């Protein structure tokens, strides 16, 4: 009986682990100054994401410049953009990892005239 309890405990401990999803790589990256406007924002995370994750890209007056279609696949979020003019843009993301841990972040990139 005791061995069964112990085996159950070990089986639970051996369940596959997941972790916080931290941003690993972004394109365009934080603080980047671009000569050509990007067609999308792509964020790669350290762990797979749940569909509740998301990203919003805002212009300097706070209006969204996304197309409204955000794709989440594995550890990647991709947001196509409308045609961007010169200016600064703010990327605001939130990530929900497979173990329900939440992380968030924001950064700015710039498109030069």
């Amino acid at each position, binding site marked *: 009986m*005791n061995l069964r309890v112990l085996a159950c*405990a070990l089986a639970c401990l051996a369940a596959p682990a*997941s972790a916080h999803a931290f941003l690993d790589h972004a394109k*365009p*990256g934080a603080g980047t100054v671009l000569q050509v406007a990007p067609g999308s924002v792509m964020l790669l995370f350290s762990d797979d994401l749940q569909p509740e994750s998301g990203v919003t890209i805002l212009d300097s007056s706070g209006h969204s410049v996304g197309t409204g279609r955000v794709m989440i696949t594995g550890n990647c979020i991709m947001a196509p953009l409308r045609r961007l003019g010169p200016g600064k843009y703010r990327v605001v993301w939130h990530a929900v990892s497979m173990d*329900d841990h939440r992380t968030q*972040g924001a950064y700015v990139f710039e498109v030069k005239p």
Partner: protein
Amino acid sequence: MHILPKGAVRAAALMLAAAITASPGQAHGVIGQRFFPATITTDDPFAADELALPTVSRFDHETDVEFDYSKTIFPGFAIEVGMGHVNIHAPGEPRARGFDNLEVSPSVELYRSPAHEFILTTGLEWEVGGTGSRSVAERSSTYTPTVKFGKGFGDLPDSLKYLRPLAVTGTVGYAMTGATSEPRSIEWAGAVEYSLLYLQNNVRDESFGRLVSHLTPLVEFRFSSPTDGSGTTGTINPGLIWSGKYIQLAAEAMIPVNRASGHGTGFIAQLHFYIDDLFPHSLGRPIFGGHK
């Protein structure tokens, strides 16, 4: 043959069942856009599921090997237990070695502000007198009510954006020992840290590799100021923390601030496990009241 008493096994099974059915709680060291790594000289202000095993230090003719395990009971409330082995080898004196007293430290998160990357926590550190070896541990208990805080500077204006990766943590406690011969003291400690991950992700993409971007250079300090005026002692500890997905590694030098604090530069190093990430569905959850 029974290795453990029957009651102990049942209690462990019940606790395990409670842990499995509970929901995830607050994340270790994350508030707003900020990740605070677990500092090794000072207690960080997060009530989290984590394990430090081992923490090894060598300073002023003393070598310590310690472990600390912190378990969330409710979201925002954790109890930490710790114990260590002490080896004192002062020149001209007989060597003393043995286990130090058990330490039990409940802590409660009082206030969190994700927008300002700020957290305030209070707790009690209880060194349980008489639980360690007579040769190295006090026979009387020490109680230290403590206030801890963490603050990230992500809310600084654009003109100071390169200071946004900075964060500070601190603790202030009042140590009351049961031994009449020992003075009471103010225990104060803290850390100033600069997160390369924050710099990379929130300020400017420096194209750091994964190894470099997960580094946090920091300076920790820990002081003790006895109330009888016998003089403040302590160390200043510059070092590095590397934070991975499930573990972190940290190493710091220990520099005494005055002669009374010790002689020569020592070191402290730690392997730390994020239990909430390693076992998100069992040991890494609060036992009661977790929520998604």
